[in-house]
């Protein structure tokens, strides 16, 4: 039977933990709202970009001079995996599920004889993958710790880095692994191929109804547009992941708060029992002492 004092200390410590977890839940909830607004605001651009891309791809498709960003290098030997995680933990399985998915994908590709390189975005993913796949990690990993707001420029930077690697022939295929925000309680691990650009869904090219003219010409525009398309895909993944992170943390902290509540209830019960037992014991001692006299 633990002593009364030790029970009291435990109850107090669980109570302060509960205060922290419930505060974290509130913070995550408000950050989630902000992240969602940001993701929503990015949608119009992405949609219009896609529309333009469809019109362009339709007219360039099949041309042997199409840029590598669109059709790849023609090989699929070296794969780049971009693993998007958070910089902080305490978000349930959010980070480890990305870590696991990336590791499995890397293992599968390697068993097929491919070379794998991994670029990590976010500190947690790096920590996770360093244990087993350290030699495949690209230096330096990217981290936005301490940054208040994700900007498009951040995504553009990643896009540029990937493009440079592609042009230098260091990679052939690039895939981004991130948590897609489905709802506050559900984040779906998504693997999305970004190079070569996935073909636009068939049958939708016509519904624009218009044959576009291009100025200067298709290929020049495509050359400028593709890095932008790449950046916007990365940007979307980053935003989805940010929203997912806060959602996951909110759920995790909600559970933690509830568990702490249960624990406090149980400990308080034990504490009261111990207190009662003490009183009973003292009474017995007094009575039997009195009888003995």
């Amino acid at each position, binding site marked *: 039977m633990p002593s009364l004092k030790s029970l009291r200390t435990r109850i107090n410590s669980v109570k302060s933990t509960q205060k922290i977890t419930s505060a974290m839940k509130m913070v995550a909830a408000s950050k989630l709202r902000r992240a969602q607004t940001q993701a929503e*605001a990015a949608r119009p651009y992405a949609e219009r970009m896609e529309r*333009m891309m469809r019109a362009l791809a339709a007219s360039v498709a099949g041309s042997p001079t199409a840029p590598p960003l669109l059709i790849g290098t023609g090989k699929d030997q070296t794969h780049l995996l971009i693993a998007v995680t958070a910089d902080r933990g305490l978000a349930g399985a959010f980070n480890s599920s990305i870590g696991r998915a990336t590791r499995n994908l890397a293992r599968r590709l390697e068993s097929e004889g491919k070379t794998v390189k991994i670029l990590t975005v976010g500190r947690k993913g790096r920590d996770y993958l360093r244990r087993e796949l350290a030699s495949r990690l690209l230096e330096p990993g990217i981290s936005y710790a301490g940054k208040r707001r994700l*900007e*498009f420029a951040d995504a553009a930077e990643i896009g540029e880095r990937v493009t440079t690697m592609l042009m230098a022939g260091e990679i052939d295929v690039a895939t981004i692994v991130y948590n897609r925000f489905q709802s506050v309680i559900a984040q779906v691990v998504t693997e999305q191929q970004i190079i070569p650009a996935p073909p636009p869904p068939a049958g939708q090219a016509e519904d624009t109804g218009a044959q576009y003219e291009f*100025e200067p010409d298709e290929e020049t525009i495509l050359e*400028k547009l593709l890095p932008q398309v790449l950046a916007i895909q990365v940007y979307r993944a980053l935003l989805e992941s940010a929203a997912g992170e806060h959602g996951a943390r909110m759920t995790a902290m909600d559970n933690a708060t509830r568990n702490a509540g249960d624990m406090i209830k149980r400990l308080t019960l034990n504490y009261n029992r111990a207190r009662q037992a003490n009183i009973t014991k003292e009474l017995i001692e007094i009575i039997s002492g009195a009888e003995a006299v």
Partner: protein
Amino acid sequence: MPTNLEIVSPEKLLLSRPVDMVVIPAAEGDMGVLEGHTPMIVALRGGTIALYEGDRITDQLYVAGGFAEVTPERCTVLANEAIPLAELSRTEAERRLAEAEAAYDAAGKPEGVQEDALLDRVQSARAMVEATGSA
């Protein structure tokens, strides 16, 4: 009849409203867009977008480059940034120009795509400086 102008940046929808005419800085020269224009996709250089109501310019925005999709009903501008001329700062513009020129010089003798990108940057910074002069 007005045409619908939309200016979108990756971070948000900046502007969406009907205008009588809009002049956009296309890569090969300024281009006026009225309602009923032939469908086009154009690349933009750095320069000024001018919104017309009747014969009057109501708004002017600086864009650093981007793309525009023109259809008979609307004109959509995809720009990485679009800043109203009144909010441009001369010092910022000059700093950018200096940076862009430094980057071009530092690259030595770039070729092909890379040269184009660097030259675009210099050109768009120069247009920004010029735009501050005209505001």
